[in-house]
């Protein structure tokens, strides 16, 4: 139903799993459709050294989370916080209809809320 790139990424996500070391955990995204993601982030001086995720949800939200982790790796937290939602959606490898916006934006919104709550960079564990 979706194209091969999407299906392949859904079945074999690059960033799935729980890393050994991480400094931030974001377990925010209990959305109304039952999708869940947990982001594990290894942060150093405001830079995302590594980010991985666990979770289950629709194809769009899972692929989006994997893509998000790819994008975020090695970048500044601040930079990622400022990602423009419509740009993000525009560059998605499959067309996102308005009814699926929430699915595609799940990782970004979880990240924003979680980082906001963790009060980076003061409050790291």
């Amino acid at each position, binding site marked *: 139903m*979706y194209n091969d790139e999407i299906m392949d990424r859904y*079945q074999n996500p690059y960033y799935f799993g729980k890393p050994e070391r991480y400094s931030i955990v974001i377990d925010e995204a209990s959305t109304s459709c*039952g999708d869940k993601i947990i982001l594990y982030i290894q942060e150093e001086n405001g830079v995302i050294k590594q980010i991985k995720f666990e979770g*289950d949800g629709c194809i769009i939200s899972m692929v989006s989370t994997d893509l998000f982790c790819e994008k975020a790796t090695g970048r500044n937290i601040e930079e990622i916080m400022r990602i423009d939602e419509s740009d993000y959606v525009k560059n998605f490898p499959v067309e996102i209809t308005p009814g699926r916006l929430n699915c595609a934006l799940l990782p970004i919104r979880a990240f924003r809320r979680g980082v906001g709550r963790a009060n980076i960079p003061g409050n790291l564990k």
Partner: protein
Amino acid sequence: MLDVGSIRRDFPILQRKMDGKRIVYLDSTATTQKPESVINAIAEFYRNYNANVHRSVYKLGWEATDCYEQARKNVADFIGVKSEEIVFTRNTTESLNLLSYSLEGKLKKGDRILISSMEHHSNILPWMRLEERGINLDYINLTPEGFLDIEDFKSKIKKETKIISITHQSNVLGTINDIDTLSKIAKENDSIFIVDGAQSIPHMPFKMINGIDYMAFSGHKMLGPLGIGVLYGKYENLSELPPFQRGGEMIKEVDFHKVEFEDPPIKFEAGTPNVEGAVGLSAAIDYLKKIGMENVRSHEKYLTRKALDSLSTLKNIQIYGPRDTEKRGGVISFNIRSEAIKRKIASGNIHLDGLLHSHDVASHLDESNVFVRSGHHCAQPLMKYLNIKGTARASFYIYNDIDDIEALVSGLEGIDVQ
């Protein structure tokens, strides 16, 4: 048999083309489309009779009042009750919240409320609110086919069970509950018996029975406009029930620190009422009466039978709810199992069920203009009970026909389920 072709011509939105193709609307359980006669009734009200109702001395004012009260009478006749027993609300949700707030004073710590595991959030959350006040909420279990488990029902009725509130028809499983029997059991215990009629009143013939104390339903689910709902209450119940919202219209006399309320139903209609909504709902009832509720029901039975049969031929489908169309309505929840969907990964805290996510199914169908709902359908406890995250759901009404079912089935065939 309904003449669906001619019915469809009464619904302007069904003439709409998207990407050049007709739309296949299979979400009437969420909200129904509106016939031209309802749209016109609304427009004509504003073009000719609009004014604030009650207590108007001038002509336009009493014409508006007349529109409003005639609508109330039409609703009352439709379900076989008296006009004074019909309270206009915004929707089923408000009707049930009214009861939750107004019955609160009758309940004491340790009292119990009994609902079922197939309720819509609107018949759960108003009662769950009372748990903060020390009231306990119990859930009736379901049988594997998706019926209420009557033995479990009986065993959960305690002498503390002051309120029993149950849906007449499930918005997920389609199950039609035997309200007659349930009400008798409830009344043996002297419990207040409430029926959520959001999915029954629009779809089947119904006359009020004595065992029902209160019943709630929504105009927008029966061809009427959004923003109008109904609470039926036996007059003697409404008489002693304290009001919910307070404000204009619903009083006899107000002093600085004292108020005397109006009689029912006005006592429960605070502020300027939605006359337009009542008028639109009344026009919807006229439309339904013209078709005949017996015919509405048999058409839906016919479509449901056809849909269940065709869908069952799909190899990877999982259908929920009873199969006997005598005991279920025209709403079918399902999931698609998929090998393609099996992710190579799994992990301790993730439950992979091998089901295509219902949103992905709905998106796929959307590409061919087949509109089904997906997700938890405001029935998360039921989803948890069934141990699934959601379902896709197709539901039928008078403007649906075999071609819609064909579109649904061929849309699902298009999902690559290798």
